[in-house]
């Protein structure tokens, strides 16, 4: 741990995280939050190791400040915000084991027009930090490279009235074991929108914890998963409404064929005093075969009064009636199935505010659909 001292990053936070991970160890299926994603068995004897993964920037728009987390003399904003989130076990692991990564800052009031593009890459552990100061706005496009095992921890801090659009596309990553833990804190009037498109791997887990800390803070999450073969994809969310007038929506659509497994676990907590909060959660899955699996687990924890919380989940098959209608109009069966799957996923994709990114996700889905049907 001597290296961490040299970095000048908050050492106490790293130590605390190391203690959390030592106490809990690599999660497995008997740990409730990981019961659909047995990380321990997916990793086998190799375990999580102590390798160093990396954060690669593919497009840095002007106005965005960066700091190499492996470098000396971190600026105040990194000291203040880095490493605060270590509640989740794998986030604690990346915080204690990673010596690198990148931090980004968008200064107060700056609206960055071009998207910031980066990807976590390599095997091992890595961290990222994105800070949007009051009134700043940014679009974040996150790619995912295929490697043996990666555990990435990303912290996002949104100041008052800051606005972040986050789109992550996780390709079909074969035998890779990919874990990413994102934690988001949103101040008054801030807004976080995220879309996660997942094509799965041996084990893929995207876990997001969002704290709506300031009045009127909002989070809108959507996502699609399209899985085949033996691929797995898990999106686990926890949205915490900490104060009055906060809003959150979630819309996830998952499709699993072959022996694939699509997981959605979504927990919404409305804390004491967060009166007038509004949350809506919807998760739907289509199964394309008898051996495919979808697990949908929406959860609500309410400690406040006068809140509006709705949640729904449904697993089904392609509608036979619709399939016949399309075929009776001359559309061959495989194409008709593809069209219906596309249609099923579309409302979640439509949540992506940026037109180019929406098209990008649609194109990825179309390519994957062709292989699936």
């Amino acid at each position: 741990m001597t290296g961490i001292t040299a970095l000048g990053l908050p050492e106490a936070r790293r130590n605390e995280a190391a203690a959390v991970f030592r106490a809990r160890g690599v999660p497995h299926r008997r740990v409730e939050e990981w019961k659909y994603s047995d990380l321990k068995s997916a990793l086998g004897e190799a375990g999580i190791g102590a390798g160093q993964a990396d954060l690669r920037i593919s497009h840095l728009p002007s106005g965005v400040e960066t700091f190499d987390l492996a470098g000396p003399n971190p600026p105040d904003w990194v000291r203040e915000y880095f490493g605060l989130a270590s509640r989740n076990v794998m986030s604690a692991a990346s915080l204690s084991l990673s010596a690198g990564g990148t931090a980004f800052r968008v200064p107060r009031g700056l609206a960055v027009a071009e998207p910031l593009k980066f990807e976590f890459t390599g095997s091992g552990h890595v961290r990222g930090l994105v800070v949007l100061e009051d009134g700043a706005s940014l679009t974040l496009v996150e790619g995912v490279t295929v490697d043996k095992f990666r555990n990435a921890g990303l912290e996002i801090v949104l100041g008052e009235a800051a606005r972040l659009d986050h789109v992550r596309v996780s390709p079909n990553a074969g035998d890779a074991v990919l874990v990413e833990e994102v934690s988001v804190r949103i101040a008054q009037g801030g807004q976080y929108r995220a879309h996660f498109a997942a094509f799965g791997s041996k084990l893929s887990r995207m876990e997001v914890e969002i704290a709506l800390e300031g009045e009127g803070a909002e989070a809108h999450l959507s996502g699609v998963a399209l899985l085949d073969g033996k691929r797995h994809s898990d999106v686990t969310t926890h949205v915490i409404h900490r104060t009055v007038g906060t809003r959150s929506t979630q819309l996830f659509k998952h499709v699993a064929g072959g022996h694939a497994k699509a997981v959605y676990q979504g927990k919404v907590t409305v804390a004491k005093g967060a009166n007038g909060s509004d949350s809506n959660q919807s998760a739907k899955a289509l199964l394309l075969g008898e051996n495919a699996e979808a697990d949908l687990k929406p959860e609500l924890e309410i400690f406040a009064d006068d809140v509006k919380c709705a949640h729904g989940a449904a697993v089904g098959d392609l509608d036979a009636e619709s399939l016949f209608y399309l075929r009776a109009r001359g559309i061959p069966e495989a194409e008709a199935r593809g069209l219906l799957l596309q249609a099923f996923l579309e409302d979640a994709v439509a949540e992506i505010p940026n037109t180019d990114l929406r098209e990008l996700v649609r194109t990825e889905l179309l390519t994957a659909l062709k292989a699936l049907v």
Partner: protein
Amino acid sequence: MLDIKNLHVSVGGKEILKGLTLSIQPGQVHAIMGPNGSGKSTLSYVLAGRAGYDITEGSITYNGEDLTALKPEERAAKGVFLAMQYPVEIPGVTTMTFLKTALNSQRRARGEPDLDAVSVLKQVRAKAKLLNVSEEMLKRALNVGFSGGEKKRLEILQMSVFEPKLAVLDETDSGLDIDALRVVAEGVNALRDPSRAMLVITHYQRLLDYIVPDRIHVLAGGRIVAEGGKELALELEAKGYEHILKEPA
């Protein structure tokens, strides 16, 4: 063009059509009338090739070919069209995308080249106008939020875009007020053609005031029990199905 001989069809083990025989020539419009549960919709689904309808006896020949051996999409490409009683709502697919995909699928199956988006749009727009189908409807998801009349107009629009050789209209009049009925009937009449046959299935005589058939067949208990010219519809209207059903066919 269409020859149905001694057709027996079961659905879930229950026999619905019990020896139906019917023949239609190009250029003709035939009507099938009958009370609820007589097997009218079963006949239309069997012609379009829906799964779950077991043909236990008899044959359906279409232009000399065994229609029952073809998949629904193959029948469509060969010119069979069913305007459905309950058009399906498909959220996420716009009406225009659907029309283009279907038209080009049919063309591809016939070995014709795809039409580009602009030519399809042009063709659809011109035809949509005649049927009072708005530009806005074409942009919306297929049938989603459409009224009963809008759905039926869209079915007829599809018929005019796909230009089938055999069109089966299953209770196209159901749920329509008199103005909507007139628009739909005009659309259908505009498609009457010496090379095209139509089979109009209806419970009520009303539709046949607007689409005047060459021949009427009365279907009851899974069989044709009476046949005649267009005047048969008026007789049915005046005396009801009971009257006909009592007489030996």
